[in-house]
């Protein structure tokens, strides 16, 4: 295989894995760029359903965005009911740890399922997408401290996901799961452990090019010595482990003799640092706009971040109402979790989940099981990372299986496609009706022809759809549309 110079050059300026650009991806061909409503839904939700489309049509784009940003006022009865029926999810840490002691598997399964369930069913869709963003940003894998990890999700990420960055950062810095995971819990004046200190600056605030040095890493670690976990699994400041000597960080002197308060000052300084505003903004733009967001948008978003002292609602409002955002239709390749949730949302009226395990573990071979990314940087956020042979293969199989869920191909789930896809008299109509329901737009004629050929063995678009034909072939059609390129971009 020879590679032309042109192709080679396309790779010449791709950035780092985490920040990898992808000029050689050409998704917009598949986006209906004229349909602004659909674009907004694609990014604000975990996958648009016909009901969402109706809502945004009634409200208009700006009102819809404001409605979603003001998430606390959106009633969420289905989620309330789900949580109320699962007491474990709201237990204080000590009770939770006892429940884990009694049945680890049950609690783990519940932690994973609640994550998916809320993404699928919550009316507060933008909020749930923000929860996902911060879950990656402050990534903590689950296995060793399941209880503390669940508390982090519930009491750190969720309360602040659309709040103030400074408060989110402080909550994270005092989260037992984070203190354990990045070893600050065992750091001491004598030998500061620099694991958390480094990731705090590199991943949580300033960014790797944000202007800190190796000396700053050690000094930050010293400031945070004594920040640990108490015997009730709560944040605790151990004054005997704290380093009371003078420190210097990013050119600021932290005078000798101070305890907990110098850590608070440090977090404040990092939360409000211009590098942080830029770094968080660039990540938000990458998540919500494109793998290579325009600099203009990163800069303007960062300036809103600075001006509002990290008011995430204001930051997101700016980003989502920007012209750069509106011009970015179809540029994000859905990550496996986004793909699965989007599929489940669109199949919702007919999809019944009695036991979620099979469903959850389709994410494992796709490489995107929630809470199972080990390094502190979170699951990758760019298409180039996910668009590989393993990911596609397993994504297709999940799509095809989902279509066949009504035939018992998914243990623990049932699917009544008649409750999802309206009736159609001819095969051509059935294909377009199905596409319009699942994709909320019609398919190019070439693709319709391919599907018709497979389903009825001829090119006859007017071929009559009998009950038998519908029962037999609709599952295949649904699976193929979910597996098609059209469903992979948002």
């Amino acid at each position: 295989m020879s590679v032309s110079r042109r192709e080679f050059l396309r790779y010449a300026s791709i950035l780092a894995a985490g920040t990898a650009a992808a000029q050689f991806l050409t998704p917009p061909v598949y986006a209906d760029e004229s349909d602004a409503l659909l674009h907004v839904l694609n990014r604000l939700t975990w996958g648009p359903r016909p009901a969402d489309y109706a809502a945004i049509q009634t409200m208009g784009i700006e009102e819809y965005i404001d409605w979603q940003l003001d998430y606390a006022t959106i009633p969420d009865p289905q989620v309330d009911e789900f949580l109320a029926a699962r007491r474990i999810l709201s237990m204080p840490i000590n009770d939770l740890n006892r429940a884990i002691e009694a049945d680890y598997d049950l609690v783990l399964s519940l932690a994973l399922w609640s994550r998916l369930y809320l993404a699928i069913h919550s009316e507060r869709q933008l909020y749930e997408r923000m929860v996902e963003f911060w879950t990656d940003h402050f990534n903590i894998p689950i296995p060793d401290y399941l209880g503390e990890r669940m508390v982090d999700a519930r009491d750190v990420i969720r309360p602040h996901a659309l709040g103030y960055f400074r408060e989110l950062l402080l909550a994270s810095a005092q989260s037992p799961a984070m203190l354990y995971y990045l070893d600050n819990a065992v750091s001491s004046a004598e030998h500061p452990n620099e694991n958390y200190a480094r990731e705090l600056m590199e991943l949580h605030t300033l960014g790797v090019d944000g202007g800190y040095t190796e000396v700053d890493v050690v000094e930050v670690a010293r400031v945070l010595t004594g920040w640990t976990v108490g015997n009730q699994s709560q944040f605790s400041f151990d004054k005997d482990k704290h380093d009371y000597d003078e420190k210097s960080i990013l050119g600021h002197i932290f005078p000798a003799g101070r305890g907990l308060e110098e850590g608070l000052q440090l977090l404040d300084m990092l939360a409000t640092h211009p590098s942080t505003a830029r770094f968080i903004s660039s990540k938000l733009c990458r998540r919500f706009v494109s793998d290579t967001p325009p600099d203009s948008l990163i800069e303007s978003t960062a300036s809103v971040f600075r001006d509002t002292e990290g008011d995430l609602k204001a930051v997101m409002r700016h980003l989502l109402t920007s012209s750069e955002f509106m011009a970015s239709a179809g540029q994000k390749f859905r990550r496996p979790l986004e793909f699965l949730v989007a599929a489940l949302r669109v199949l919702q009226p007919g999809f019944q989940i009695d036991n979620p395990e099979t469903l959850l573990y389709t994410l494992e071979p796709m490489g995107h099981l929630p809470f199972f990314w080990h390094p502190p940087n979170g699951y990758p956020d760019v298409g180039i990372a996910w668009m590989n042979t393993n990911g596609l293969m397993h994504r297709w199989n999940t799509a095809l299986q989902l279509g066949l869920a009504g035939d018992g191909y998914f243990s623990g789930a049932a699917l009544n496609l008649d409750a999802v896809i309206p009736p159609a008299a001819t095969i051509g109509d059935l294909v377009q009706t199905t596409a319009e329901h699942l994709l909320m737009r019609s398919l190019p004629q070439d693709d319709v022809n391919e599907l018709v050929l497979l389903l009825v063995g001829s090119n006859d678009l007017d071929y009559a759809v009998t009950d038998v034909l519908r029962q037999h072939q609709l599952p295949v059609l649904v699976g193929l549309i979910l597996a098609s390129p059209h469903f992979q971009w948002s």
Partner: protein
Amino acid sequence: MKPSRRQVLKALGVVGLSQALFPSWMPRMVFAPPSVQAQDSSNEHDILVVIFQRGGMDGLNTIVPFGEGAAYYDKRPTIAIAAPDGRDTSAIDLNGFFGLHPSLRPLKDIYDANGLSIVHGAGSPDPTRSHFDAMEYMERGIPGDKMTGTGWINRHLQSAAWENGSPFRAIGMGTLLPASLRGPISALAMKSITDFHLGGRSEQLSGIQNTLSRLYTLPTTGDMLETQASSVFSVIDMLKQFSAIEYVADHGATYPETEFGMGLRQIAQLIKAEVGLEVGCVDIGGWDTHDNQGGAQGAMSDLLSDFAQGLAAFNADMGEVWMKHITVVSMSEFGRTAVENASAGTDHGRASCMFVMGAGATGGVHARWQGLHTAALDEGDLAVTTDYRDVIAEILLKRVQNTSLETIFPGYTPNLTDIIASR
């Protein structure tokens, strides 16, 4: 089906493959070679197996410089590995100065037979202590450069003088493609060979595959999604040609039941099946031992066991005849601090060590060793005295027969250390 603790571990890569996670209706395709025929001299290029130890491996407890005496032991009061003293918790002597961590015992016979070379003090010249930057730099082969999107292995394949149309030309065993394989030459990511097939009603599968491949024929030529999709179809078609017999490793080799072990085992399968594999990449993670690293036993010891058992099994499975055509090389993004921290662990450092196994190995520990006294260290860490690219470059030149080093490692002139045997 409940996720058991075993499944949790499995998802973490601690235990085997994911077959049990699939519904039972999925057909099983087990892979077996059409013939196990040793390659003859017509094969002119070694197959390269590249292992990345993610997280920053502590080289000083892997290849133990016990000969340093106090300069080593004083820095590591609780985690140091004892000098060889006959007990199975002490280092395994290699040359009177360096010793293997006791968990690396499976590698000793290979070392004694000159089938294993060790390069100590190897690493990247870029001083970053960020895992993510360090890994990216190492895998791109251009330390400090964030603009180049291709990995060194992809550039190697691109610049190689020969053609190879096999979809299996390069593979990364896992759910994501390693950065070293990124670039215009299509490389596979694959977690499991046996699970790599479409599922559904069996009588419809070929029709579905056909339709899917047409849906993935995209209007823009060279689209990455289309390229990847087309690789999937080629691989599925190729795997269909193999009969369904459980793979049994040769010579009684037993791979560890870990993601690493399974990755190596599947590479062995592919090599023996002669599907055209030139480069296989396997990761082994978890080396970021900031706390409770352990010494002769403990967290790092378990990782080293996995590593050593995997390599030894691969070496045994492939056997002498195959191993004449295979070079295995390992690397890690950085080593760790020479001094242990208060959490009985080590923090991010500089140099680590590399292993070269197979045809290219000449035996021995190779190090431009300057000692562990303060002046010899790089800000408290073992200094990088061998650029990791020197080792790879020599393998590429002498074993893989690719001389385009200026393309593979742009702007760098390797300083060959002459530790690799020529073909």
